């Protein structure tokens, strides 16, 4: 059998043996990220599952430099590293923040915003798995409406919508912000490549599969991620200097239930009495999608965003 030559990863830049759960999005997204960024990269990791996965003493999962830092200020740490490297003439080295949704939407929000506003030359990766998974599934402001977490148990499921991080990040007028899905690997890899080629603050938000947190069978990680995109619950788009581009328009309508049903965290929503909630989620999803398309149209028709 001929080995196909188009495998996505030509040279592995992670070591096997990482401490991720089965079917974890973190490991997979970092595996692809590192394969594109190469070893000349400093990864700055605030508290998150990845701070465990990346390797306890004395191990390092990455073929690259890894700096573990405090939860609230990874972009600040990265700022220090970036400026020091620049000063040392190592402008070609990548400095990359690997943060979770808690570390980005919540505790690290200010630091992220600060770095984005300053236009720091950093790549910020958000693995958005919709809760504080490292501490065992607690609600973050990225947690989807209707999801059950240990701080929103059972009927006390989360009853607020996650914040529009991409909108906020985009409003910082940074050169590049994009969402990506591991089920759309070529698109994700293209976005990493694109981010790598740019300068300034660049942010990628990846829909992070988390089998224990989402209560999904590990083998379904990619399948459910794909459904998130197909149902438009996690649209794929880019924002360049506030100009929106939608990267994938699902061919056919797939109801949000399709994506939610395999996820145990939404199980209660399928009780007859919770039908309205599913409808609300559908409505909100559709509305956000329409808004996204409208943003794309608006920002492309108005030339003010072009350089």
């Amino acid at each position, binding site marked *: 059998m001929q080995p196909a030559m188009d495998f996505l990863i030509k040279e592995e830049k992670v070591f*096997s*043996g990482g401490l991720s*759960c089965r079917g974890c999005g973190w490991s997979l997204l970092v595996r692809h990220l590192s394969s594109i960024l190469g070893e000349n990269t400093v990864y700055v990791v605030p508290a998150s599952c990845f701070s465990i996965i990346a390797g306890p*003493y004395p191990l390092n999962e990455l073929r690259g430099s890894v700096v573990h830092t405090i939860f609230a200020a990874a972009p600040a740490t990265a700022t220090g590293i970036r400026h020091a490297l620049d000063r040392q003439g190592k402008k070609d080295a990548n400095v990359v923040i690997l943060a979770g949704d808690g570390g980005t939407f919540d505790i690290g929000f200010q630091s992220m915003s600060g770095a984005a506003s300053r236009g720091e030359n950093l790549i910020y990766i958000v693995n958005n798995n919709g809760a504080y998974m490292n501490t065992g599934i607690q609600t973050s402001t990225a947690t989807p409406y209707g999801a059950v977490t240990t701080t929103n148990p059972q009927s006390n499921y989360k009853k607020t919508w996650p914040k529009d991080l991409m909108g906020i990040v985009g409003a910082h007028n940074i050169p590049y912000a994009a969402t990506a899905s591991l089920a759309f690997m070529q698109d994700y890899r293209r976005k990493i490549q694109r981010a790598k080629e740019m300068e300034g603050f660049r942010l990628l938000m990846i829909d992070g599969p988390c089998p224990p947190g989402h209560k999904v069978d590990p083998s379904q990680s990619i399948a459910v991620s794909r459904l998130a995109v197909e149902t438009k619950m996690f649209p794929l788009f880019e924002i360049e200097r506030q100009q929106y581009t939608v990267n994938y328009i699902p061919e056919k309508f797939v109801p949000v239930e399709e994506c939610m049903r395999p996820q145990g965290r939404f199980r209660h929503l399928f009780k007859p009495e919770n039908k309205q909630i599913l409808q609300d989620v559908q409505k909100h999803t559709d509305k956000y999608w329409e808004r996204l398309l409208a943003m794309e149209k608006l920002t492309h028709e108005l030339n003010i965003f072009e350089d």
Partner: protein
Amino acid sequence: MLEIRGHARGGQGMVTAFEILAKIFSKLGDYHVQSFPAFGVERTGAPIQAFLRVAKGEIYNRSNVYNPHLIVVFDESLLEQVPVFDGLRESGSVLLNTERSLENFKDKAESVFTVPATKISLEKGLGSKSLPIVNAAMIGAIIKLIDADIDIAKAVVAANVPVKPEANAEASEIAYNSIIGLGESELKLHEFLNTTKIEENPVDEDFLKSVGEPEIDKFSEPYWSQPMSLNKTGNWRVLTPEYTTKLAPCSSNCPAGTDVREFIKLSGEGKFEDAVEIIYKHNPFPAVCGRVCPHFCEQACNRNELDDGVNIGAVERFLGDRFRNTLPEKTPIRYEEKIGVIGGGPAGLTAALQLRRRGYDVTVFEAAPQAGGMMRTGIPKFRLPDVVLDEEIERIRREGVKIVTDKKMKISDLEDEFAAAIVAVGSHIGSKMHVENEDQIIDGIDFLYDFKLKGDKYGIEKGDEIAIIGGGNTAIDVARTALRLGAVPTIYYRRTSNEMPAIAHEVDEAIAEGVKIEFLTAPVGVTGSDKNFTVTMTKMELGEPDESGRRRPMPVQGSEYEIKANKVIAAIGQRFDEFVFDGNKVEPAQGKMNLDSKIPVFCAGDMAWGGTVTEAIGSGNKVSDEVHAYFRSLPYSHEENHPNVVMPVDINFTYYMPTPRINNIVKYDIDLYDNFDEVVEGLKEEEIVKETSRCMHCGECFSCGNCYNYCPDAAIHIDDGGRLRIDYDYCKGCGICVQECPCSAMTFNLKEVVYE
């Protein structure tokens, strides 16, 4: 004080189990309890420990349990991976969750008990196959070992599990009653539980006396760089993915037994000679079958779920045409048994060839002036040009099969010269309709034979109205032949187009050429003669399904009507010629026959089963195997086993883009009068390569790399042979590779992997 240490995987519920046990002990008596876990930072799957102390008085120890009285192993696979038996007290016991016999563990401890907790839990629906939650069952077993009250335990279990309280309590009770290895030891555990004697700490003297400089290795700085791969995560795995080649439906559905997937793949790689060899292994007639087979392979093609099945027939035809006049190698005769084959059709010729290849001296006797059977006599030239058939038969001859034509033989004719007879005379006698005046009706089979071999038109002239009764390929071929004689043929079929046994594309072609078909109508009687017939027809309707699975046609009362025709041709079925059995009444069936004959007689082909060229070829292959097995005293079974055939549900269609099928060009727009040129064109080489790229490779890895690309643990690599391989040192068994494998070339099973 009783000290228990548990070993499990994160996510199996052991920590909860130990907490529940603590609660149970507090209910069982005036016990002080202490239960706590010790785990790393990993989550599901990683080995963890839990501790339980129970005492009559205060517990004066808050450290881990190093020297337990009882070691409880929740996951059997941990035995090979973690030193679970370390520190067990001299008189201590071990409880294992396993279905294996006690013998396997005798050397581990003085007293070992087993309980099939995984089985019990799965039966009770607790957890999943990849991670059964065995805590309730293990609690039940532990309760038995300390000789405590199971009813109290059940109540506490039910009150403390997050879901399924009853199932959990039942699992506890079943486990309580399922322990193997019971003896004296449970009493000892009970003693430890209730003793208030102050125990000595088992301490190593050397440890107490050792004093030294702090042990600071070179890594005692907050930075480090050893590779993560020092940490082997393979021991987290419960379910194991494996590359497994499964049967593709095209291959499993080919009556001839052709490895369709393989020849399609080789064709796609441009290796046409290798590809045709794959076909020749089972089928000496690819050029014929590429034209006339209904392509069971294409019908079963999983791609039909996405767009259209791969045009396998066109590939087969291409290969057959390219190689049909090549020179095959001849096998030397190895065996003394001479085989006689009666019938030179696809079954007889195939059987003869296969036996000849094995080293038997084989002679085929054909009644007609030319070999080929129905391929020769029943299939018109515009579907199968003579040269195609001639050349493929010539290849068989060149491989050493002797073919004697114009020789209508009986079994008894072979008895002296041959060690065995294979009867494959086909079905060349047309069935009767059992209507009045039937002798005025032309038999379709005869018509095709006589026209093709002798040019006998049965008086059909330009403009004649021809009524053809039937719905099979014969009816279609008759109609299309009549059309080419300038007649106006109409087919009358008693069911609907859905039930028509004729090959669908042949029907389409016939209609396109101008053949009319009327459905749900059947003849009741025929009057007239020569070229002036009146056929009384009755309308039909479909009733309940008959034994063939098709809905039975029922006459509609009072719906009779008449049609006029210059000729009436019946093509309603065929049967075999009994001449071969010396006129004896025989019910032919595949394989060795129960006949009162001097030599063993084997039956194959249309007369045994099937009705298509390819089925006849398959039948010939089978009978050759049986004959060989008979003479060589090898085992042979008629049973067929097709496990693990890849079905549409196994395919991950996400990874296949809808791509239009490249169809053969069919020439409709020409004047058909007296034109017996081939109607269907073959595909060109570049089209063949393109069309084979539509193959989804069901059940066989085609190195798409999905498993590699999606493995979160970088546990898949390409070995020196260029094959994808799983590194089981690191594979945690998430199953993403299996799920994302487009073509179901992987399996995911509950088993340990044998290292290569």
